[in-house]
């Protein structure tokens, strides 16, 4: 009987299409059609779409481990393991709260920036290499509020709620 073991290199099910999809000549056309249909149906759901976005974001965070000091061609620190772990924890809470970020980038201040956008309203959560977390809400022309968080789940949830209120106001 199938028994799970802890995943080592987790490949999300919805990535199946990308691994086996068009362009791979070993795939027969009926199989390609089945995969396309499955993929389209999976993506019609918000849950699966967001799940896919969060899995991509988690992979992006893991991928930042390859950045070197000075990655921006100036003198920026690369995100360290603490920043990556904090960012992954924040992403897990964001997924539970159903608020997918718009993008995720390394920060020039040393850390990782998780960004949100809704029209002209913007917000960011920054996970710094020091372990500190900061939140900013702003417009393209004005920073409206910046505050620091501790790494507790409750504190992060409250910040997410504030971001959501601002983005949808």
């Amino acid at each position, binding site marked *: *009987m199938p028994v799970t073991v*802890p995943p080592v290199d987790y490949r999300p*099910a919805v990535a199946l299409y990308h691994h086996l999809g068009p362009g791979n000549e070993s795939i027969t056309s009926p199989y390609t059609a089945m995969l396309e249909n499955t993929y389209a149906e999976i*993506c019609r759901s*918000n*849950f699966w779409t967001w799940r896919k976005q969060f899995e991509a974001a988690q992979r992006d965070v893991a991928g930042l481990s390859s950045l070197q000091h000075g990655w921006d061609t100036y003198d920026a620190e690369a995100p360290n393991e603490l920043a990556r772990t904090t960012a992954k924890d924040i992403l897990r809470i964001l997924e539970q709260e159903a608020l997918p970020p718009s993008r995720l980038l390394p920060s020039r201040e040393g850390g990782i920036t998780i960004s949100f956008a809704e029209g002209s309203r913007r917000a960011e959560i920054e996970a710094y290499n020091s372990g500190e977390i900061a939140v900013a809400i702003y417009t393209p022309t004005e920073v409206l509020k910046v505050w620091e968080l501790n790494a507790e789940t409750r504190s992060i949830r409250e910040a997410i709620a504030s971001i959501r209120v601002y983005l949808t106001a």
Partner: protein
Amino acid sequence: MAIQYEHAPITEALIDIRVENPPSVTLAVLEGLHEQVASDYPRKQKRMFLVGEISAGDAVGAHASQTQTGFAFSSSDSKQIFQARTDGFTFSRLRPYVNWIQLRDEAERLWGIYRQSTGPMRISRIAVRFINQIDIPSPRVDYKDYFRTTPEVSPDLPQGISGFFMELHFPQPEFAGMLVLRQAAVAPLVPDTSSVILDLDVFKEISDVIDEGEIWTLLEELRARKNEFFEGSLTKEAKNLFGERREY
């Protein structure tokens, strides 16, 4: 009879109606729907269809070619989403799911707004879909303890697997439809647990003209069939995870 669990594992419940719209239904027409629902669904995002990829947001990778198919209007807490697309209408309720009556009534209200603005020539497909995330409080589980339909691994092979995705198509001759069961192991959001998705998508392709009343009668039938498959797919041990069970 319907069954409601105290902690239902439903992570998304949706009603989907696909249509053939007249050419006059442009993205501008669909965007115009937002004014009518903005008080309850203030968030507006483009619904994009990408080559091999779909996105709910504005930003897409530079590598992807994209076509906008419509808009997704979300409630301020992002728990309810109304998709208005050129090819149809979808109303989703995300966790926490409340009940079928609220889902159906809100879908009916929003469908009325969509239909009035777009005037579809034909309804081509009607679906009820419930996506359940079953979180099992152990990192190592035997799927057969929780699920009554599982991938069968040959006894001659190693039994440990770290992931699976299974899709089964069950014809529904009673109403000439189909039920697609998708079951997949996914990365759990909580450490030291296991998560499995049970995605039940029951639909009917429509070839004849269907009147408004028939849509909602058919949706009740689809939902009843979905419930049968949900109950029949899980063991007692799995259902014990969902708390008190109430029949109504």
